[in-house]
């Protein structure tokens, strides 16, 4: 199929798709008129039922907790897949490093100071986002993404070998596995305590306190650990694809 023909075929069929989409959206309730009822129901009962103030977290880690388990394992499988693919390539006999490794560019003072200066603050911010998921906006996924990316600042401010020293691969892998496994262990714990799989069996505590919301907090923490590990692994593996010459640093 020639590119020209393909483009025309695309344009014609897209016109059809666009009309279908337009037909679909005119029948939706207009923007700003959410009709309910599920969201309104959750908004009115979740605070009392689960002692959380962030309803999105309650949905993710309690009402839809089984779906989030699946989502977590998509994340786990994708990170593992990246790791396997890239490591397999590097181990292949015909593999050779790129002919000329990228020269280490001199990090400017601005990059160095901004990078190193922000590490502590970003890390504290990430931990805060993970721990307060049930109270304020945020959660394990968001906080984990921040925490996993923090070590990149070391790479930006310094060089690859320093980055590898502060991000041990073993710890990243351990965090990913412990986080993913922890979620399932919490679910089985609920079974042993006489509830259903992943049921919120722990005492719910006082609404608004850090120690409240039962298993929601625990599952969220476990997710935070896993996402931190998964993001660290992704960055470690991809950065290995752009080797730097160590001598010129």
């Amino acid at each position, binding site marked *: 199929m020639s*590119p020209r023909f*393909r*483009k025309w075929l*695309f344009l014609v069929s*897209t016109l059809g*798709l*666009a009309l279908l*989409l*337009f037909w679909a*959206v*005119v029948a*939706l309730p*207009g*923007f*700003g*008129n*959410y009709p*309910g009822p*599920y*969201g*309104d129901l*959750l*908004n*009115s009962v*979740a605070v*009392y039922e689960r002692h959380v*103030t*962030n*309803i*999105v977290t*309650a*949905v*993710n880690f309690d009402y*839809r907790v089984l*779906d*989030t388990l699946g*989502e977590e394992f*998509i*994340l786990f499988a*994708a*990170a593992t*897949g*990246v790791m396997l*693919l*890239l490591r397999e*390539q590097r181990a292949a006999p015909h*593999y050779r490093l790129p002919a000329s490794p990228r020269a280490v560019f001199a990090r400017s003072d601005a990059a160095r100071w901004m990078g190193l200066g922000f590490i502590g603050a970003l890390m504290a911010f990430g931990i805060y986002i993970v721990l307060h998921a049930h109270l*304020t*906006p945020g*959660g394990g*996924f*968001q906080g984990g*993404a921040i925490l996993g990316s923090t070590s990149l600042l070391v790479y930006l401010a310094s060089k690859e070998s320093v980055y590898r020293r502060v991000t041990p691969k073993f710890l990243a892998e351990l965090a990913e596995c412990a986080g993913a496994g922890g979620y399932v262990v919490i679910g089985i714990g609920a079974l042993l305590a006489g509830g259903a799989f992943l049921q919120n069996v722990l005492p719910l505590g006082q609404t*608004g306190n850090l120690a409240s919301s039962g298993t929601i907090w625990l599952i969220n923490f476990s997710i935070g650990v896993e*996402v931190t590990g*998964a993001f660290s692994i*992704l960055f470690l*593996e*991809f950065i290995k*694809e752009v080797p730097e010459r160590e001598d010129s640093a």
Partner: protein
Amino acid sequence: MRLLPYIVAAWLLLTGLYGIVTSRNLLHVIVCLSIVQSSTYVLLLSVGYRTGAIAPIFAEHPPGTPAVDPVVHALVLTDIVVGATVTALLFALAVQVFKRRGEVDPARLRPLRE
């Protein structure tokens, strides 16, 4: 205004598809796929939006204050996480293709022959 966010979502979907169809580079295909996916964020959040309502977080507002739909927010969170990791996986596959075939233009990639 009543339809604008939905039309933005449809626009993102169609432009992303156009990019995928006409792309000459696998990395570009992956970025276009992310654009297609971001249309789902816009669509989901628009469906759950209510004019003048607060975010579904009752830390500073008493429960019962009109709020937007928390279910679509949870879905978008799932969507973003899955999107980010699948993008990473696709990038790894693109690196694999380039190393084995020395080529990133999908039109010039021929089927594998052993």
